[in-house]
Structure formats: structure tokens, C-alpha cells
């Protein structure tokens, strides 16, 4: 098992820690709209690295590229509810692009190149954060203050 796999596993656990305790409450609500999108994106984020590295490239490549271009940015732009879905998408893609550039540039600068590890890190951070945002939107009272919309 590689370091990337271990980190991905941690991502699964973190996402489960966020979502599983809320499942009884979530089951009483209809999960749709924005929270549903965030929950799906969270699941895809933690799957991006294993699908890209272990899955067939015809599926894994576009899947991983699409997820990595949206999920990290969507996870960190919690400072403000943008409102419009297209605006939210463009900010998420821009932030993801910027983070990918900076992280890849950092790997190049320090001379440690490990693409699966970086993808796993992105997924492990983005997945639970997105899941937390989704749960927060569905069950506002259970979220911590200041965690954003």
C-alpha cells in the first residue's frame, strides 16, 4: 500500500466521521439541490486518486481531471456564499487551478514529484470539507460557528 493509498484511506475515514453521525437526521430530510451536489462532489473527490491511478484511463482520466478542477476550489471557497451556480463554479475552478499550480510548482521546487500523493491529499482534504459543508447546509444547527455557508 502506497503513501497515497494511506492518505486516501484517511480521506474516507474523515468523510465518514463527518457524515455517518448525521445519517439518521439526514434520512429524515430530502437531500437535493446544492447540498446534494456538494455531497456527490465530496464522494467523487475522495475517489479521484484511486480511480485515476487504478481505473481504466478512458474513464479515470477525464473523471479525475474534472473532479480535481472543481472539488479543491469548491472546498476552500467557503468564505462567502456566491449565490449563482455558474459564479460558484467559476470561482471553484479558478481556485482549484490556482491550488494545482501552486502545489505542483511546490513539488517541482522541492524536487519531490509524486502526482498520486498530491491527488490523494487534495481528495482527502476536499472530500470531508465538502461533506461538512453539505451537512451544514442541511442541518445548520449541528455545524460549528464560522464554518461558512
Amino acid at each position, binding site marked *: 500500500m502506497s503513501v497515497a493509498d494511506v492518505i486516501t484511506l484517511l480521506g474516507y475515514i474523515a468523510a465518514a466521521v463527518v457524515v455517518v453521525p448525521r445519517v439518521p437526521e439526514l434520512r429524515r430530510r430530502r437531500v437535493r439541490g446544492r447540498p446534494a451536489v456538494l455531497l456527490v462532489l465530496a464522494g467523487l473527490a475522495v475517489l479521484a*486518486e484511486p480511480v*485515476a*491511478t487504478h481505473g481504466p*484511463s478512458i474513464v*479515470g*482520466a477525464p473523471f*479525475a*481531471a474534472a473532479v*480535481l478542477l472543481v472539488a479543491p476550489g469548491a472546498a*476552500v*471557497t*467557503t*468564505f*462567502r456564499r*456566491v*449565490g*449563482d451556480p*455558474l*459564479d460558484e*463554479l*467559476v*470561482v471553484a*475552478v*479558478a*481556485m482549484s*487551478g*490556482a*491550488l*494545482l*499550480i*501552486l*502545489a*505542483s*510548482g511546490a*513539488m*517541482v521546487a522541492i*524536487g*519531490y*514529484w509524486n*502526482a*498520486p500523493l*498530491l*491527488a490523494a491529499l487534495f481528495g482527502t482534504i476536499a472530500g470531508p470539507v465538502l461533506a461538512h459543508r453539505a451537512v451544514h447546509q442541511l442541518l445548520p444547527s449541528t455545524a460549528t460557528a*464560522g464554518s*461558512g455557508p
Partner: protein
Amino acid sequence: MTPRTELVSLRRRSADADPATTPIELQSSGTSGTAHGWGVHPAGVHAAVMVVAIGLWIAALPHIDLGAMSDYGLPSVLPAIFWASLVLLCAGFAVALCEDGLARTRTAYIAVLVVLTHGMVPLIYDVPRYAYVYKHIAVIRYIAEHGSVDRSIDIYHNWPGFFAACAFVSDLTGVDAMDYANWAQLFFGAAGALAVRFVARGFTSDPRRVDAAVWIFLLAMWVEVGYLAPQAIGYFLAMVALGLALRFLRAAPGREPGRRAVTWLAEQGRAVTLRWGLELPERWRALRDRTGASRVTRFVRRPPGEIVSPTEPACDGVDQRWWASWGAAAAIVTMSAAIAISHQLTPFFLIIAFVVLVAAGRCRQWWLPIAITALTAGWIYLARDYLSAHFTLISFDVSNNSSSVAQAAGSEPHQVVSRLARFLTLLLVALAAAGWWRGRGPGQTTLVALVCTPPLLVLFQSYGGEGIYRIYAFMVPWLAILASGLVAGLRPRLLHVVPTVAVSLVAMVLFMFGYYGLERTNSVSPDEIAASQWFEENAPVHSVLTLLSLNSPTPVTARYPLYRNLDGNWGYQILGNEPYVTGDLTVESIRQLADGLAKQGRRSYVIVGPSQTAYVESFDDAPRGSVSAFSASLAHQPGFVPVFHRGETAIYEVLP
């Protein structure tokens, strides 16, 4: 009712409405207009128009014969049904623009426009366009293979951010950059449209005006910024960063930096004059009273279609929570850092734009331009060794800086294409001026300043003759937003619809020629790529490739640093306006290069191919037909050993 009186009544109605709900809630609805008399909903009609346009476009694609292309580029081989699809789309959007509501319909039109104008590239071309994209692919392959960069190799290794990100994607997914490079244009076309929409919504809450701005932007952007290149991501990130500032970092009413200074000065002057009982001239008294605090801090809702003032929310409510402001600022800094390590030129445009926003009071984080400047300067400092050896960082030769890399001369069709592109620029400026005149008000000052500041670049940088194009690219979004002021008050009447359709159609035709008019030189043959690959994989290390012109898809592999010339650059060219050029298309000029290289212990190769031929013929560097004849004659010259031949492409080893 005339259009003007309609506009006035619209303003009055809006001004009378509750400022808490007008105009955002009333305007931002995506609901469609009313059904026509025969019971068909307008949105349904427009959907049918779009479906037909897409159908015609799909039907046209198999009939595009790239081999029959003339010097007029891609438009010369586009079938009539392709043009019909564009006409249908322009007409449909113009009608939708004149109707109330239909916000989602207009967004769909914009999406279809992006697909129709940019989506055909990966479908009709087997390999990426633009010869210079292949060097980017070579750098991406180098990073993916080595996991590092070498700053002494070239400038790309000194600004590696974008290439490193592409290498990451390639390494993770196993998909080579060559395979997705052709899709970059569609991706960045869509991303650019979304970014401009994001920015425009920081200036106005009128959805019609926002959609018009995006449409105008897409049709006016004949300069290519969307291929697989650092400038593409830099442009996109810069627009989103500016949008974040415009949307979420507005100054609170009365706290704009410029106005605060004026207020302070005015109040000090007022206090002094009152204290000492000075008698001021009438005009000075009026000025003093006008710049009083109550005037400065006023907060007025603008009617729909007008550009909001710095403190007015356009499409967003004001969020005063500290993390909303600092989060947006952090996102801007992150994007700016990514730009700074990816592209040399974009940070300067970003800095200038942020200075304008801060000065205009549209960005309350005054330190942002300073932070972006520090990031840029820091990265330039890290690259100082390479830059000082190979480039002139600052040049005050304005005439040289403002000159274009593409010569004014060229074949007749080439000159026509150039004139059409320039005419499109003039059309955009004229529309922007008319839009500004129609919607003139205090809110537009920022837009005018943003339009006027990018040309400042010509004062100190030419960017290899490309600066003038980048300046235009960074002016287009602001010009488009200004031009969108013309749509205020449009109604679904023949008098309004016909001119809107006409302008849209003219812009579309000009765009197609401006953007795709040089396709004969921009398109690349797979044989040329194979030839370049052969050279980098088979020629002895430190061999040098000589080209008729640099418009050839070389280098292309991660081994390219092993084949640089004596100047540390890639290849020698015989024709063209680059520094290492012989200027004469003769066998002797190639032999002289080979003799010089032999003295340095290097072997010399020469490559000939269709994209080089098209380039030198289009730009009149050699008489038409002479290059092909010259290339064919090389096979019979003594000392020229053919080592690769496929189609019209060949490589010869030149014996000294």
C-alpha cells in the same frame, strides 16, 4: 413610446420601488418571458433555434476540407450550413436580448456559441494547432519525466507553474499533454466566458447587460489566449481575481480610499476657512460644499442597466463578516501567486487593474496591489540569472514595444484578414463608446480607467512583439461591459431587433476571419510532429536543427534541452525576423550554418515541412512556390543526406 421615454419610465419605476428588493430580486430571476399568441413559449422557440443551429453545425463538420484551405484560413473551407448555424445563433440571441426575462435562454445561447466557435477545433484537427504549443508540450513532458526544472534551460523553466500543473495531470491520469492540448481552446473559451460573466456581475445587476457583455466579449476576442499556454490560465485567473474584488471587496459607503482623502481635505479646508473667516470665491465655495461628507457617503440604487457606483452592490449583498472579506482577499492572493509563477506578463496587468480598483474605491483591501507586486517581484528575482543573460527586462522604446510580431506585409488574403481583425477592434471600441455615452454616469469611470490602463505596458515592455495583442486581450472585457450599455431599453420590436442582429452578425463574421483567418500557418501536420520526434530521439546529442522559419512543431519531447543551439535557444532559422537568422533562402546559407556548427563539434540537420512553407509564404518572406521548390531541391544537393521523409515533411543531415 420612444425608446428614450421607455428608459426614463423604467428608471422611474425602479427608483420608486423598494430599494431593498430592487433591482436584484426582480432582475435576477431566470424566468422566461410570456407565451406568444399561438401558445408557444418563447423559451421553447429559442430552444428549437439552438437545436437547429447545433444540428447544422454537426452536419457541417464532416464537410470541412482542411486540405483545400486558402490564405483566408478556415472561413475559406467552411460550408454554407456552418455559416447558417452561426446566423441562426446570432439572430436568436439578439431576439432573446430584446425580450424581458429569458436569462437562462441567453445563457444557453452563450454556451452554444462557445461550443460552435471553439468546440470544432478538437473535432476537425487531428493534432493541436499552433507550432509553438509543441514547445509547451515538450516542457510538460520534461517535468513529468524529471519531476523538476532547470532554470538554465529556457524561460519556461523559470515560470513553470502552469506546466507543472499539466505535468501533474498527465502523470496522474496517464494522458499525454498532446492528447488534451486540442481541448484547451474549448475549456478556456468556456472558462473565459464564465469569468467575464462573473466580473460583469460586479458592475451591474441587469442580467441582460451581463449576457450582452459576455456575448460581445466572445465575438470580439479575436486574439488567441485560449490554447495550451500559461497565458490562458493567467488570463482566466486574473479575471476571476478581479471579479472577487469587485463582488466581495467593495468599500463600505463613504470609506472609499480616494473619496476619504477628498473628504478629509475638504473638511480641513472648510474648517480653516470658517475658523479664519476667509471669504472664498463662489466657485470654490460650491466645490467645498459639494465635497462635503454627506455628499460623499451617499448611497443610491441605480436603475437596471446602469453601472453601479463603487459602494453599491450589483448582484451580491454586502457581507461585512471579517472572514468574507479576508477569505476573498486570500483567494485573490492565491490566484495571483499562481499567475506570478506561471506567466511573465499577466501579473503586470493584474497589478495595474488592482491599483485602479483600489483608487476607485471598488476594492477596500488597499494592500492587494502591493502584495501582488511583491509576489511578482520575488519571482522575477528568482529568475534574475536567466533573465539578465537572455532578455531585456525593461525597454523604453515605445515604438518598438507597440509593434506587432506579425509583419504588416504579407499575401493579399493575409492582409485582408489582418484588416478585418482590426476592423473588429474598431467596431468594439465604437460600441463601447456608444455604450458609455448612453449609460454615462459616475459608475462607469472605473471601467474607462480599466480600459485605458493596459496600454501603459508599451511604455516599458514589448514582450517579444506580442505585448500589443495582450494589451487588447486585457481591454476586451471592460470594453464589452461598456458596450453592453447599448442593450438597456431594448424591446422586441423590429427597430431594435434588426440592428442588434446586424451588429451581432457583422461581429461574428469578423471574428471568424480574425480568429481563424491564419489557419494555414496555425495548423500543423502530424508528419511534422513525427519528424521532430524522430530528430529528438535519433540525432546525436548536441545536434542542431535548422528551420526555414520557426513555425514548425519543434521541439516536442522531454529530450529537447539536449539539442539547443550555441545561443542556448532552439534551432536556427533561415527566414523571418528572429535574431538568429541568415535571411537568404539558399543552400549556401544552410551550409554556412553547418560549417560553423561542425567547428563546434556539432552535427547539423535541416527540417522542411508544410507549416513552415505556409508561414513564409503568408508573410511574404519568400516568393510563393519558391519554398516548396527549394525544399524539393535539397534532396539532390550534395552533402544533404535524407534521414526522415513522410508526406511533405523531410529532415536532411547537412554534411560540412
